């Protein structure tokens, strides 16, 4: 699975590539619009990450060419301008998502994973599991080590998200958007509190902790060697 990054700012491009590579993605980076479009049209890529302002050919034009060629490769836009027209324009042209600079890398990574997952319909799961934690989606029950745990509806949704995306660092903004449908910048610490309360029920009584805080980036659910 290959990702194409078209970004003309060398520093940004370099760090995007490094970050995505370390997250396990095979990426290619080009700095100008014309080459970017050529590569994008080859259809080899699973996802395009396009900057709007590019030399030669801007991100919108590349997107348009890709869609005109009948390709439905997911496209994530990076833009420095948060103008309403930009947003509307991008969505009209068929962009799948966009991020306004400055953005956090964890946010980008989470969105990339969401977009890549969108294409492949996951089989109908009836339960999710990590180590001795089990979540029954049909009966809406949670057990750990055979012990039943009572969760509120939102706690259940939060844990379901963490389990579905286990191993991924989930930024607070993504959690707020996915679990509570709150799609705005907020400096509230609601998510911290909610995670802490979930931990209290899931992790506190057990020696191997599953919910981890990645400082400055978000939360991850994974089994770590003790």
């Amino acid at each position: 699975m290959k990702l194409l990054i078209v970004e003309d700012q060398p520093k940004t491009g370099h760090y995007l590539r490094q970050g995505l590579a370390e997250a396990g993605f095979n990426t290619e980076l080009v700095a100008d619009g014309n080459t970017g479009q050529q590569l994008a049209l080859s259809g080899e890529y699973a996802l395009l990450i396009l900057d709007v302002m590019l030399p030669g050919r801007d991100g919108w034009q590349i997107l348009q060419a890709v869609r005109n060629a009948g390709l439905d490769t997911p496209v994530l836009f990076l833009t420095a301008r948060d103008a309403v027209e930009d947003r509307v324009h991008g969505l009209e042209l068929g962009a799948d998502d966009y991020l306004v600079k400055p953005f956090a890398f964890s946010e980008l990574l989470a969105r990339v994973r969401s977009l890549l997952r969108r294409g492949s319909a996951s089989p109908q799961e009836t339960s999710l599991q990590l180590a001795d934690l089990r979540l029954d989606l049909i009966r809406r029950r949670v057990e750990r080590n055979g012990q039943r745990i009572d969760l509120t509806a939102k706690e259940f949704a939060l844990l379901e998200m963490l389990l579905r995306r286990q191993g991924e660092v989930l930024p607070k903004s993504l959690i707020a958007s996915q679990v509570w449908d709150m799609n705005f910048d907020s400096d509230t610490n609601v998510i911290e509190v909610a995670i802490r309360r979930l931990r209290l029920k899931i992790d506190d009584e057990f020696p191997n902790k599953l919910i981890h805080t990645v400082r400055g980036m978000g939360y991850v659910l994974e089994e770590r060697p003790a």
Partner: protein
Amino acid sequence: MRRLSLSSRLALLFAACTAVVSLFAGVLFSRASEAHFIELDQQLLDSKLLGLRRALHDLQSSDSQVKLADELSRQADLSLRITGSDGRRWYDSSPQLPDKLPQTPGLSKLNDDGTDYRVLNAPLFADKPDSPQLTLLLDITHHQHFLQRMQHLIWLTVGLSALATALLGAWAARSGLRPLRRISAVASGVSAQSLNARLPEENMPPELAEMAHNFNAMLGRLDDSFQRLSAFSADIAHELRTPLSNLLTHTQVTLTRPRPIEDYREALHSNLEELQWMAQLVNDMLYLAKADHGLLMPKCEPLQLAEEADLLLEFFAPLAEDAQVKLSRDGNARIEGDRSMLRRALSNLLDNALRFTPVEGYVSVSILDQPKGVSVSVQNSGKGISAELLPRLFDRFYRADPARQEGSSEHAGLGLAITQSIIRAHGGQIRCESAEEWTRFVIELPKKD
């Protein structure tokens, strides 16, 4: 082509008006004098005709020539010709005149060799059809000279008065337009440094007073916006200075000597926190800048406010339970608005309320559906805010609690300003009320039909 100046245009218009008026008066006067001369000539000729008829009442032949000569000698500029009914010329006092004279009865005019004559044709005996014809000729050259002189005079007057009014008009226009030049002088002196210049509105002429007033009002608005912009820029610089200096110091200190890897990790984490705070600040400021430029365009989705409030209360529930604060909501209203913006506005209010509510306190949302509009109030228990601080709450970077020092908290002091911008973009108002035991933010949103 360059447009004429206002003063020259006025001066030329004045001159044209004067020229037209004096020309009209001159033409009228010259017509009147000509008519007057004709009347005088008519009277003179009529009286002569009367005298001649009396003198010649028994004229049968040419023997009364002596009488005629005698009669005519008293009037040097008068000539006489008598023609019999058979067409023969009986008498001619001035044979040098042309043979052919105007035959029309009554007065007519004749020009012969540079001399003007008034001609009167009349029968000698008014009651006899075959009476001999009298033709009287009056030399009117001096009248014509007078009329010509007068016409020259009129043209001269027209020309001179037009010139004089043009000059006087130019002067009058210049002095009449002096207030405009004053406005222009003030306007040319306005710059970012001197937005406090104002036009004196009292001694402006009424036509310009309104313009001067609007001009001053414009300067006032500019001044106000500029002041706020300057203050905002200063605030931004101030807000960014603390995290920037933390970043600089921490990074430099970390790099001064080799350290264990854990220290580097710690330094990067600390930097990350500062950077995230700064990114949040920049995003919030961009949002406010967009609102200031009227670029915040709310969508118009039908919303059930109770539903939205309940979702938000559910979102804040963990925080409230932790702080042992009771959350409640009553009332409902339907409204057209932007879901995500209004959620953001309300969430800022709720977040703010929870911050200042003591343990065992409450935060309540009440929605009132009124005929004129919808009001949403968020009230929390706790120590009230003193009245003089209420208007400042919505100022950017204002923090009710000065102990919360800048940079350290995730809260930059822009939340209420953003809420206000969102409510205003929806055409609504927000205010804060406070008493000893509670604080309440009231949002009023208009209803769209």
